[in-house]
């Protein structure tokens, strides 16, 4: 510890000797790191795996079950009600849920103004498949239609002023529903179960209704619905269950490779039997992307963020190059002292220890300066891309990454100059 403090003192004296070049080095490095980190925050949050323990076991079946010859390399992103029923007939998955999102209005009684809400029409297994945490109550026991809803804690507090509201009633489009469960403040980031709609960067819904009830109430999908025949689907409760209205997302949980293979075989048999029955003329094209790969599968990642990531990375490299150059000049001007220390008995290893303290000091100062720069960068990006505000949050692992990145950059900036200085000719430097 005493030696560390000595090295720290030596570093501070060295900085005091030529403060301006050091300040410029730190500013350049902090600017590069801050801008890079601002972008890295979005990039990290957008590309993180919200369910790392099961994202390789949740799958999004895709089939070409449409009543015409479909082109393109991928099937249509959503399924019809009847197709989902056929898929749901399989007992292979551990869990499975069909769903879609829609817009609705909610209020406690008819005297109140209606509050617009995003509503997810879904089935029982949705909550267990995506690890939705419950604060109160229980999920519906089956997938049948019922006038019961699950609401988010935020909406409960907004409507009732508190969250313990199980058993209470509310009006959804003036139909009375009983609250069966309350979800904890929950934000799946990114919300990968909605990636096929490129809607995975938005907030989670605050209201969950049984799918069958939503169909009964004639709720159409607010994000993606494809009508592939001439049926009038305004009467969703009847035609929507039989016709070629494609609006459902369908997720299955397949825990083992054997289950996954069995499900692929099941999908193949289903496609072949449907084709044989004349219900679809296209070639069999079944896809089973895992949740882990779903953004890539639907090419739903943000091009802006990617482009900006590249720009800030290049900017960081330019900053590193310039900071290294300044650092080299600073170290070479101190080469005399390196040589003197070596002449007096310091080994190269001991000089490298001194360099490491320089690196740690540079890292600490750079992190402190780059954080406000990163915050400014995030504010700018929130202004430019308001859709991504949810992804501008820091967590511990992200901050630790910044520290490691700053350490790496400080090492790069310091290493070469320090080695150059510590390998200089002793005699020549001492004479000069």
């Amino acid at each position, binding site marked *: 510890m005493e030696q560390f403090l000595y090295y720290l003192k030596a570093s501070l004296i060295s900085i005091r000797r030529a403060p301006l070049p050091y300040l410029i080095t730190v500013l350049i490095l902090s600017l590069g790191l801050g801008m890079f980190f601002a972008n890295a925050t979005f990039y990290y949050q957008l590309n993180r795996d919200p369910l790392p323990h099961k994202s390789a076991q949740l799958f999004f079946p895709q089939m070409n079950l449409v009543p015409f010859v479909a082109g393109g390399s991928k099937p249509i992103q959503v399924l019809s009600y009847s197709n989902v029923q056929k898929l749901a007939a399989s007992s292979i998955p551990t869990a499975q849920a069909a769903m879609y999102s829609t817009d609705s209005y909610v209020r406690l009684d008819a005297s109140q103004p209606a509050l617009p809400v995003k509503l997810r029409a879904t089935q029982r297994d949705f909550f267990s498949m995506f690890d939705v945490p419950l604060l109160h109550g229980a999920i519906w026991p089956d997938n049948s239609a019922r006038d019961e809803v699950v609401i988010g804690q935020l909406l409960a507090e907004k409507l009732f002023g508190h969250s313990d509201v199980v058993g209470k009633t509310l009006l959804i489009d003036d139909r009375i529903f009983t609250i069966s469960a309350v979800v904890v403040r929950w934000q799946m980031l990114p919300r990968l179960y909605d990636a096929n709609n490129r809607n995975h960067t938005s907030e989670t819904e605050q209201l969950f209704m049984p799918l069958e009830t939503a169909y009964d109430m004639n709720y159409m999908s607010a994000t993606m619905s494809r009508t592939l025949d001439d049926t009038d689907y305004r009467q969703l409760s009847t035609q929507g269950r039989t016709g070629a209205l494609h609006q459902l997302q369908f997720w299955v949980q397949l825990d083992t490779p054997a289950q996954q293979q069995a499900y692929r075989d099941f999908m193949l048999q289903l496609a072949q039997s449907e084709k044989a029955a004349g219900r679809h003329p296209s070639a069999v094209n079944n896809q089973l992307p895992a949740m882990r790969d779903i953004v890539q599968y639907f090419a739903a990642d943000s091009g802006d963020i990617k482009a900006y990531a590249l720009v800030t990375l290049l900017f960081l490299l330019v900053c590193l190059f310039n900071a290294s150059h300044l650092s080299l000049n600073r170290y070479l001007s101190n080469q005399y002292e390196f040589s*003197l220390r070596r002449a007096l*008995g310091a080994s190269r290893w001991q000089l490298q220890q001194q360099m490491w303290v320089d690196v740690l000091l540079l890292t600490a100062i750079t992190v402190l300066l780059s954080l406000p720069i990163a915050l400014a960068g995030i504010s700018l990006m929130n202004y430019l891309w308001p859709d991504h505000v949810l992804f501008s949050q820091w967590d511990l692992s992200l901050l630790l990454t910044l520290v490691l990145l700053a350490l790496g950059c400080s090492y790069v900036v310091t290493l070469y100059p320090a080695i150059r200085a510590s390998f200089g000719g002793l005699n020549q430097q001492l004479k000069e």
Partner: protein
Amino acid sequence: MLELSNITKIFRTELIETHALRGINLTVNEGEFVALTGPSGSGKSTLLNVLGTLESFDGGDYKLDGTSIKGWSDRQLSNLRNEKIGFIFQGFNLIKDYSLFDNIELPLRYRGMAASERKRRVDQALELVGLAARKDYHPSQLSGGQQQRVAIARAIAGQPRILLADEPTGNLDSLMARQVMELLEQINAQGCTILMVTHDPDQARRASRQVQIVDGLLNDAALYDPLQQSVRTNTQSQQADVA
């Protein structure tokens, strides 16, 4: 104690090779005070730097206490410099923004010595050079002679067995030079071996032995006239006398 056998040193650039040392054979015994003299560019500083392991050598062998240091690692050479050798430079080579105490303490730190022992040694060395009251001063607050005394204190604080001094009085006036020489004699009297490069024949005469270097070769018998910057060997002298 020190034994150089046929030491050669060549400085190479892209265009030329300079043979700085051409086969030096030299033995220095414990407790000797050896003055290295010779004209500018003769190789005496290079020899001192080879002795102090600040320069490597290209050929020959260098034995210290009977052990060859040829092929030693950077760590071994650093330890050798730190524990057995003290350096005094013409330009003092003190770190300007360190106090006298911190300057003198520097080599002791790299030895991993305890703080209390470092303090005792630094105080002792400052006492010896007569600057005990100024240990918190910075070099810029001292005269040239005082700075050189600090450099001497730094060199002896580690209690080295050999002191290498490269023109230690080169930047000092005659009064201060005399004080420094007296200090070196005092240190030598305590048993420390000293090798000193000097241009001053008066100072060279105060050493127990003079060694002259000419064109990278030792010439024990040479007569060097620093005023004329020329060398006449004994043979040349004899021929001149005959003529």
